[in-house]
């Protein structure tokens, strides 16, 4: 579903990602763990085309992202951002925001599908559709952002720290929602987090990153059984 080879990203001289490769199978949930500045979010943003200069190859569902028009890619892969307070436009009601991707891509019946999507993320009924983001709590906003990301029925969802701006009780609700959606819609996830517990709960495989480079790739079973080769990973587990 997602193949990244020899990825190098730098921001005007500062290397953000170095020689990184990863493969995510269809239907899998893959975690990227690391501390701030380790390059994990940069990988997601590069896959989504939000970073200008990078080298290497990235293929999403077999499509080379350099050669595929953005609108075509948009229907395969979408992203949910970290901060639900800044990822929704403050001047539009949430119904409009969820419908926006469908309007851009000329999909039929955006109103009805918007209602369905909001229902799917637990914001059903007409109560929420015509609210502005500032009237919603953080958790509700993140649900809206998830609904918007699902508007074009992508197969792959990239989640950049989807719960780190939320309270722990809300985090549980959002994680449960994401797991349910993955099962119901057959999605593939790539989740970025600094929290190993979240990754261990959500992902079958994970890659630990440090200083712009991958440290090691583990399965959940290896993580839980303590079959860890790298000292840095052990430090992370101990501190969690």
């Amino acid at each position, binding site marked *: 579903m997602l193949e990244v080879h020899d990825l190098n990203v730098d921001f005007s001289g500062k290397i953000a990602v170095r020689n990184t490769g990863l493969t995510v199978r269809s239907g899998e949930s893959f975690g990227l763990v690391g501390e701030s500045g380790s390059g994990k979010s940069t990988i997601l943003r590069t896959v989504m085309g939000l970073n200008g200069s990078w080298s290497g190859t990235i293929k999403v569902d077999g499509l080379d992202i350099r050669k595929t028009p953005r609108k075509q890619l948009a229907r395969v892969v979408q992203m949910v951002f970290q901060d639900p307070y*800044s990822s929704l436009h*403050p001047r539009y009601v949430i119904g409009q925001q969820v419908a926006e991707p469908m309007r851009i891509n000329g999909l039929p019946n955006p109103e009805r599908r918007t209602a369905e999507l909001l229902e799917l993320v637990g914001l059903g009924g007409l109560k929420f559709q015509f609210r502005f983001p500032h009237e919603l709590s953080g958790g509700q906003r993140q649900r809206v952002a998830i609904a918007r990301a699902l508007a074009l029925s992508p197969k792959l969802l990239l989640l950049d720290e989807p719960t780190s701006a939320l309270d722990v009780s809300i985090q549980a609700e959002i994680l449960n929602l994401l797991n349910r959606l993955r099962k119901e819609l057959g999605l593939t996830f790539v989740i970025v987090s600094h929290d190993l517990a979240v990754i261990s709960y959500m992902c079958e495989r994970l890659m630990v990153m440090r200083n712009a480079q991958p440290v090691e790739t583990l399965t959940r079973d290896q993580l839980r059984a303590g079959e860890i080769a790298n000292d840095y990973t052990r430090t992370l587990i101990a501190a969690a």
Partner: protein
Amino acid sequence: MSTTEIAADPRHAVRAARWAEFKLFARRFMRNPLGVAGLVIVLLLLFAAAFAPWLATHDPYLPNLTSRLAAPSAEYWFGADELGRDIYSRLIYGSRLTLLIVALVIVTSAPVGLIIGAVSGTVGGWVDAVFMRITDIFLAVPKLLLALAFVAALGPGIVNAALAITLTAWPPYARLARAEALVVRNSDYVNAARLAGASEFRIIVFHVIPMCLSSVIVRMTFDMAGIILTAAGLGFIGLGAQPPLPEWGAMISTGRKFIFDQWWIATIPGAAIFIVSLGFNLLGDALRDLLDPHLRQRK
């Protein structure tokens, strides 16, 4: 309103939501007494302009030499000028000219500045460089001087005066809009629109410009006071509205000759300019408190 109605007409529901937002905004605005005072002044100006024929007691253009330079009285509330015209009536009709100039300048300068700034900030690169250098050039020209040169070239008159002011009024809007756009273009909600395949045009029109609007509106309100003053200044030196038009600046200019003996001729229009400018400033201040993203706290 029943829920089925909402379902039947989503556009209506969106409008209802916006109306509710506006009511909330209005309620917060009403808590600022100075802002309300400013709003009342501006509304009075609009009222005077709209109903000038009914409010005026005399013909503002008809000379009446028997009452030349008459002092304020029951007949002439604010006195009469050197041709015996009622100053009160001229003031009322003059509000139309003031509003005309303000409107002309605002509808030309604010959108131009907004679009240039939003495009410049969102697109970046050489577009930004070119647009901003042009803006810098206009900013570097002294305001009144450019207006003077412009009016001198095209001839005096209200429309030309408005055009001249516009030439120097748009660059601040462009600066303002660009600064907002620079922040907005990197925000996650704009990124989300990009990820959905939105074109740069769509992003500018639907995502960046709505976010620039509030600061532009605030700036606009403040600017109106400045425009009124500049227009009056041009009128005063004879390059704005031409006689016999009852433009306030021109009225002060004619009253200048009599200022020691018939003070009201210059003072009354001067006070009108002062009050109206103050009204726009108070209104602008109140709006800024409510709209400025830097002053507003994140909920």
